[in-house]
């Protein structure tokens, strides 16, 4: 740590909401503090794609690309999810409630080429993030269109966002519009500028080289 001057009486906003007592401490990844807020963090203006122009696509190393309109997407088998979310800016919010189809459900509509190893999530506004395909299978990832029982608000990524609870929240691409399956990895928006390629919050994989 650099030689910063410790400011008398300053503790910051951490641990003032849900605290970190007992059981909760075990659910808080290293270096994180608990919050009951849902901070809005962004890299650009909020996209506002009208639902009649929205679609979600699976493409790349698949038998044939598949695309759902909004109405079609809502008809896919969906479930409720209650997961803990950690952002690399150090907040963790426990038991966030979402609804939407798992990525497994989405991938059932395609035949994945055996050479495909990575899924690149791309979103309105140009944001991308990358994940090994193994990290989005088996219930590890979903596309949420509801948060806390209500339609997902635009500032939180609505109409739909990717959610990957086992990774820092930058991997949970807001305004997601599709997954492109590839043989080679392709670091996304933050992964290409100093953030960790994998982003496991339990291993505190924040920055490249961690």
């Amino acid at each position: 740590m650099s030689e910063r001057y410790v400011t008398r009486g300053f503790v910051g906003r951490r641990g003032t909401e849900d605290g970190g007592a007992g059981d909760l401490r075990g659910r808080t990844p290293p270096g994180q503090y608990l919050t009951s807020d849902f901070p809005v963090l962004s890299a650009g203006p909020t996209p506002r794609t009208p639902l009649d122009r929205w679609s979600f696509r699976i493409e790349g190393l698949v038998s044939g690309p598949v695309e759902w309109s909004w109405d079609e997407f809502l008809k896919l088998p969906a479930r409720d999810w209650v997961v803990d979310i950690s952002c690399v800016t150090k907040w963790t919010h426990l038991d966030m409630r979402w609804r939407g189809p798992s990525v497994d459900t989405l991938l059932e509509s395609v035949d994945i080429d055996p050479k495909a190893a990575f899924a690149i999530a791309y979103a309105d506004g140009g944001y991308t993030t990358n994940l090994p395909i193994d990290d989005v299978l088996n219930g590890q990832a979903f596309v949420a269109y509801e948060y806390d029982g209500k339609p997902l608000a635009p500032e939180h990524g609505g109409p739909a966002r990717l959610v990957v609870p086992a990774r820092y929240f930058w991997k949970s691409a807001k305004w997601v519009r599709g997954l492109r399956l590839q043989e080679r990895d392709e670091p996304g928006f933050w992964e290409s500028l100093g953030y960790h390629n994998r982003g496991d919050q339990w291993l505190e994989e924040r920055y490249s080289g961690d």
Partner: protein
Amino acid sequence: MAAPIQWQLATVTGVRDETASVRSFTLSMPAWPGHRAGQHVDIRLTAEDGYSVERSYSIASAPEAAAQPGGSVEITVERIPDGEVSAFLHDVVVPGDRFEVRGPIGGYFVWEAALGGPLLLVAGGSGVVPLMAMLRHRAAAGSGVPARLLYSSRGGDEIIYRPELDELAADGSGLGVVHTLTRSQPPGWTGYARRIDEAMLSEVLRPLGASARVFICGPTALVENAANALVRLGLPAAQVRTERFGPTGT
């Protein structure tokens, strides 16, 4: 001169309440290089475990005031209810406390008397702070540049620097201060009572004319609406300088 980009330790030498939720802090620094009206400082607070936050605050004092021995500057901070830093500054900090400061910063949103005018300053809430530095500088420099401040506040109690603004507007130097109170007005109020809009700007701008230099500071929506309106009114975009920050203000 080269940007002072190093952090240095500032000591709080004075604290003064401006309104119920706005407080000014006088900071003394050993190596303050001087500043220009409109610039800001970054402050950095660090907890014992290394957790650290930074915020930017506009300098409220005139450059001339910092030229006194001891090199002090004043910042004015609105207490945001959940604000991590502003609540700390209001609730914990007392004279004698120290924290790290970097600056002055900014070369875009600055005015000095030598640049001339006429000058139109448009403020929303605590956006008035850097504009106050400009008015304090204008007074300290003895400038007679025609100037107007259009200042939007929620109510009369929330006007920052009100007594000083009244004095400056009455000192005969050619400054006019126009308030608009958007949520509550005192009995008998005859001034503007709505958000800043094109009609209001047109009226306030009229005596200054189309060569006015404009500085707008406040919440993003207020700043953008005002800047767009002024361009529609015929001011070249290059004459309109803006500084946007959070939702404090009206």
